């Protein structure tokens, strides 16, 4: 879910843009360095960006019986690392705003903060933690995708609660309200996205191991096993 154009008060929209700017700038610097060292990487990044866009537009059957879209941020962060995902995620959000009218230009900063910054970093953190604790690749992938999806929506809830505090309960009341509404749809969706991501990575491990090695998701030894 993206915050639509005009939904946030102008001050909040500006503040979230300022908050997201250093992360996007850091991602752009990393991206420029990567392109300078390896000009061919530009094409791979272009393909990755198109893949991220398509991933976020896929309809997945939700556990509740309805249909929903994955955020794709967990898989993106695992495959391309969070700083690059910040840039690719922001480009994806900009394209979604201008090509699909999902999200907006003034709310791009807020949407980028939740979906392209906090979500990918949290997802990547969970993925790394599970792998360091000795969990297998697929368990780590599930944790990464689940956490990235859920954290994205928690941040969106907090952004909306900050912008529209409850008349009686203030920020906490509004957070409870938005969180409760999202929880009904988002917890099943996060589980669905986690499962989808696990199955996609499992399929990729058998069909595109070379790409996963190139992206440092797998090591040479892990392919044989």
């Amino acid at each position, binding site marked *: 879910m993206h915050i639509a154009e005009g939904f946030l008060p102008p001050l909040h929209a500006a503040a979230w843009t300022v908050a997201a700017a250093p992360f996007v700038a850091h991602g752009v610097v990393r991206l420029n360095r990567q392109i300078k060292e390896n000009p061919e990487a530009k094409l791979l990044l272009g393909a990755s960006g198109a893949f991220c866009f398509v991933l976020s537009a896929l309809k997945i059957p939700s556990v509740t019986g309805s249909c929903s879209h994955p955020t794709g941020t967990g898989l993106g962060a695992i495959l391309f690392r969070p700083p690059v995902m910040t840039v690719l995620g922001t480009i994806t959000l900009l394209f979604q705003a201008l090509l699909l009218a999902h999200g907006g230009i003034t709310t791009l900063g807020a949407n980028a903060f939740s979906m392209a910054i906090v979500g990918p970093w949290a997802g990547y953190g969970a993925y790394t933690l599970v792998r360091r604790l000795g969990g297998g690749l697929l368990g780590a992938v599930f944790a990464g995708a689940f956490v990235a999806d859920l954290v994205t929506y928690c941040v969106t809830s907090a952004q909306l609660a900050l912008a*529209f505090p409850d008349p009686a309960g203030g920020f906490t009341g509004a957070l409870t309200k938005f969180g409760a509404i999202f929880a009904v749809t988002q917890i099943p969706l996060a589980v669905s996205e986690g499962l989808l991501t696990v199955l996609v990575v499992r399929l990729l491990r058998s069909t595109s191991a070379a790409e996963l090695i190139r992206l440092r998701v797998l090591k040479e030894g892990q392919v044989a096993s």
Partner: protein
Amino acid sequence: MLAIDVAAYRSPWRRRHPAAKAVLAGGLLLSALLLPPWPGAPITAVITLVVALGWARVPPRAFLRSARAPLAFIVTGSVTFLISVDTSGLAWAPGGAVRAGEVIGRCVAAVFCQLLFAMTTPLADVLPRIARRPGLSGLAEVAGLVYRMLSVVLETVNAIRRAQADRLGTRSWRTQWRSVIGLAAQVFVLSFDRARRLEAGLSDRGYTGSLAVSVESLPLTGRFLALAPLPGLVSAGLTLALTSACTVA
């Protein structure tokens, strides 16, 4: 191609400079966001609709179809303003309906402004111009590549979807899951394969790292640029006049 992009390429404003269109849509967007929602939002929304459907001749059906999804989100999201939550439980929020109406009004006007720009300006006209800005060339080039690859990838997605549906891949919950997983994995494989082939083709042509493309020169001066800020100013003027008239009354 996506419906908004199709409309942008077919727009009679296709040959107008993106910066002039940004001034026009941006001015209206500022009016939508900064003016008091009543009467600012309806005035801005109506002026934007007149500009989009009348002046820019955006097809009404395509415009309304593109507005449907964001407007549905806005209405659903605004329902939460009707309810208040505190330690004693749920209750109707005092002034919730007014707040919801204000947010819906502001969003409708803002979404119309967003669509006005998006449905008259192809991204292919905007991205190369951003690439000229110092420090942004790498980012704009990657964004340009994403944009170009997107059309091809979306076509692939549609072909795979059709093939899956023809093989009864959408018959049940189980087959739907299998189809989505196959689709995501296949798109990943094809995207990377396409990037690899592009890489090989470019290196055969002596690729040095620059993907600069020639950009059609569009005039930035003239009557259109002079008229561009006008709709926003009219919206602001009308709103302020009506507000002061209501205050006096």
